[in-house]
């Protein structure tokens, strides 16, 4: 009995009332979910329609839901930190707890919020934009999602079991080494990110092949919608950057688990090598999440200006340049490491150069709006907010790229303000815009405009109130990751203002949740399938889209294919003869991805606690899943013509 008690006291995180509260909330929520599913007899439905699905649209929805949950958790972390910093010498959070919170906030927001939200948008939009019926590898797509999901769960569970990681979002050694960090938190970090990282890598491969090989006939590369281009450039960066992360984390794990000396202080190891490697992934990573944002902006600006995108070719060129150039700037994250002047000069210049293609894009959006017939529904508002915010964020980035000046800015709140401005101003604004823009395509009804505008204004104003003071605080000498400061520093007024801004953004999030609930409750079905008067192929389909997407694969010969088609119809040109339907070849659902990802979770959990009895069966399970898949040959089926006709008739009825 005592041994069980002793085990439980180390296995579970104890001693903090906040965490006990969370324990209760987690158990209650899980019980509620199980109860609802059982009471309404929805288990089979859940398994058949969602957990085993290989349909890109449903996988996309699951990504979005998961990432919004993660946004909630990351956001709560942020508000806890802002509360702690609101006044000097605050006793709200202990320093150790504060360390854990800023670590999980960073990891969750980048890897478990921005990335999956981005993958969700890839899934929801790209196949529809290019006239495909699914992605190139639907099975792999499902596997990617479940790897992300279980990776994220493994990371999150650390908060109630074993203890959270606390060495910062990139886990710099030697602090993250066993010697200084003997708990299991760092191992949760490694395995959570590792498992979901494999998923990200596979998504990258999947969408590259989808975009290069599965476009509708006639859609040449230079006729692709801009969002699809941006996804291609983002995926190219993913496939080259994520393997570096995989290796780097693996090496850190080998250090911790097998006592190797890659990044230790003794026996010839070099912690700087970790910093060098992690930023070779880390810098491209921020471009990975922001590139699709550029594509989203381009789609929305052109739709709501009712004009073709200005400078299509320069946009494509800028996207591709960034894909490659993002790999040549990583050392600007450690100018202060003590490299020679030649190294710092080189990376300062490359960093400045990469601002050029980014600037090109801003001009393209502005010129697209010039003389357009502009309207301002919620997605367009987010775009407006984005352009301003991102320009300022980009400019402060150029300031940071000046190596000598960086010695002042480095690790100060100036840096914090900068990267929040590009990541919130660039990524979050764009992804929110995308969610409201494509929502009617996915679910068949628009989100409430009024609440959406409230959410936007709260977010936008809250953002500036939160982060503008932080630039000043940085210049006043406030460094990142400090949990307490004294009255004598003179920082508290600005910190208080910043905290108020943070809570305004929290209110904006509540407005967004309210917006979604309200819109579901007072749903007005969109019968047109094209509520924004869109330009690209996805708007030619009924909403929600039938599971095979296109009854007949379209033929394309211009950039804004659907727009041109609408113009033709307006001119009264007769539509081409109705083509004969043919049976559609579709992939079958599969339970292997979720089981395999679960096995990874088990293996990861086993390694975290150094329980080989758990880790080895987990890995064996992974291998068995792979072999079972390799030996299964009946993975697809045909949808007969009469079923397509029925589905289309029903969809047309809705139209």
């Amino acid at each position, binding site marked *: 009995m005592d041994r069980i008690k002793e085990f439980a006291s180390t296995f579970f995180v104890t001693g903090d009332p906040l965490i006990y509260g969370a324990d209760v909330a987690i158990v209650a929520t899980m019980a509620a979910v199980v109860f609802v599913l059982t009471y309404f007899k929805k288990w089979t439905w859940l398994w058949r329609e969602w957990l085993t699905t290989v349909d890109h649209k449903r996988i996309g929805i699951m990504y979005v839901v998961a990432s919004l949950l993660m946004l909630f958790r990351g956001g709560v972390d942020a508000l806890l930190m802002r509360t702690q910093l609101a006044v000097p010498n605050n006793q709200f959070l202990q320093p150790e707890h504060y360390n854990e919170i800023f670590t999980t906030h960073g990891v969750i927001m980048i890897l478990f919020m921005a990335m999956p939200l981005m993958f969700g948008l890839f899934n929801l939009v790209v196949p529809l934009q290019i006239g495909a019926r699914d992605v190139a590898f639907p099975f792999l797509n499902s596997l990617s999602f479940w790897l992300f999901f279980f990776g994220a769960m493994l990371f999150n569970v650390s908060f109630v079991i074993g203890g959270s990681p606390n060495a910062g979002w990139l886990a710099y050694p030697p602090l993250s080494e066993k010697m200084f960090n003997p708990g299991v938190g760092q191992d949760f970090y490694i395995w959570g990110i590792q498992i979901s990282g494999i998923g990200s890598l596979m998504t990258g491969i999947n969408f590259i092949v989808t975009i290069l090989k599965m476009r509708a006939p006639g859609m040449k590369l230079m006729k692709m919608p801009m969002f699809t281009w941006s996804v291609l450039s983002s995926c190219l960066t993913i496939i*080259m950057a994520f393997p570096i992360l995989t290796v780097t984390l693996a090496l850190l794990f080998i250090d911790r688990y097998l006592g190797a000396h890659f990044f230790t202080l003794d026996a010839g190891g*070099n912690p700087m090598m970790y910093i060098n490697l992690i930023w*070779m992934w880390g810098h491209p990573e921020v471009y990975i999440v922001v590139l699709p944002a550029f594509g989203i902006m381009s789609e929305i600006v052109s739709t709501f200006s009712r004009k073709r995108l200005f400078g299509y070719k320069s946009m494509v060129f800028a996207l591709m340049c960034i894909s490659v150039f993002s790999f040549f700037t*990583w*050392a600007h994250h450690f100018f202060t490491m003590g490299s020679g002047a030649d*190294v710092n000069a080189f990376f300062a210049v490359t960093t400045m150069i990469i601002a050029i293609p980014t600037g090109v894009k801003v001009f393209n959006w502005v010129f697209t709006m010039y003389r357009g017939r502009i309207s301002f529904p919620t997605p367009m508002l987010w775009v407006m907010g984005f352009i301003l915010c991102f320009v300022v964020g980009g400019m402060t980035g150029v300031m940071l790229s000046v190596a000598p000046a960086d010695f002042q800015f480095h690790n100060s709140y100036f840096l914090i303000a900068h990267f929040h401005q590009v990541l919130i101003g660039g990524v979050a604004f764009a992804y929110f815009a995308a969610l409201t823009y494509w929502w009617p395509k996915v679910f068949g009804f628009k989100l409430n405009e009024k609440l959406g505008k409230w959410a936007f204004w709260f977010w936008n104003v809250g953002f500036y109130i939160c982060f503008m003071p932080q630039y000043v605080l940085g210049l006043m000498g406030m460094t990142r990751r400090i949990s307490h400061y004294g009255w004598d520093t003179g920082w508290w007024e600005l910190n208080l203002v910043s905290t108020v801004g943070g809570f305004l953004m929290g209110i904006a999030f509540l407005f967004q949740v309210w917006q979604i609930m309200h819109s579901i409750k007072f749903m007005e079905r969109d019968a047109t399938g094209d509520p924004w008067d869109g330009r690209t192929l996805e708007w030619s389909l009924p909403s929600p889209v039938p599971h095979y*997407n296109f009854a007949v694969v379209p033929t394309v010969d211009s950039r804004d294919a659907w727009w041109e088609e609408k113009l033709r119809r307006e001119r009264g040109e007769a539509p081409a003869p109705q083509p004969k339907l043919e049976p559609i*070849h579709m992939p079958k659902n599969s339970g292997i991805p979720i089981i395999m990802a679960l096995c990874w979770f088990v293996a990861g959990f086993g390694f975290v606690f150094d329980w080989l009895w758990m880790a080895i069966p987990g890995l064996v399970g992974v291998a068995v899943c792979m072999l079972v898949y390799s030996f299964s040959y009946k993975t697809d089926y045909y949808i007969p013509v009469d079923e397509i006709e029925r589905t289309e008739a029903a969809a047309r009825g809705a139209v």
Partner: protein
Amino acid sequence: MAQHTASHGAHEHGESHGSLKSYVIGFILSLVLTAIPLGVVLNGWLEGTAAYVALMACAVLQFAVQLVFFMHLREEKKPRYNLLALIFGIIILITIVAGSIWIMMYNQVAH
């Protein structure tokens, strides 16, 4: 994926043809390119920088031999996405290796 028809497939692979002759030539070349560096190092044919250059040159040539004779990179049909992916991969590879060496080994402060 969805647009695939089952009857289709066999003729389009185009990646792995090649003849016995090309495989044999490739094999012989790779043996030679392995023997040369062995001679350089174990018998001391060359020293210093010359040896480095010879070793790396043989390795890179060997890589090319495998690509051309065994992996049939030249037979890819247009558009040559595989070749483009390879070139991109090699650029990043060189960036990682050369960049790390430059940053980590040739700066005086870090050591």
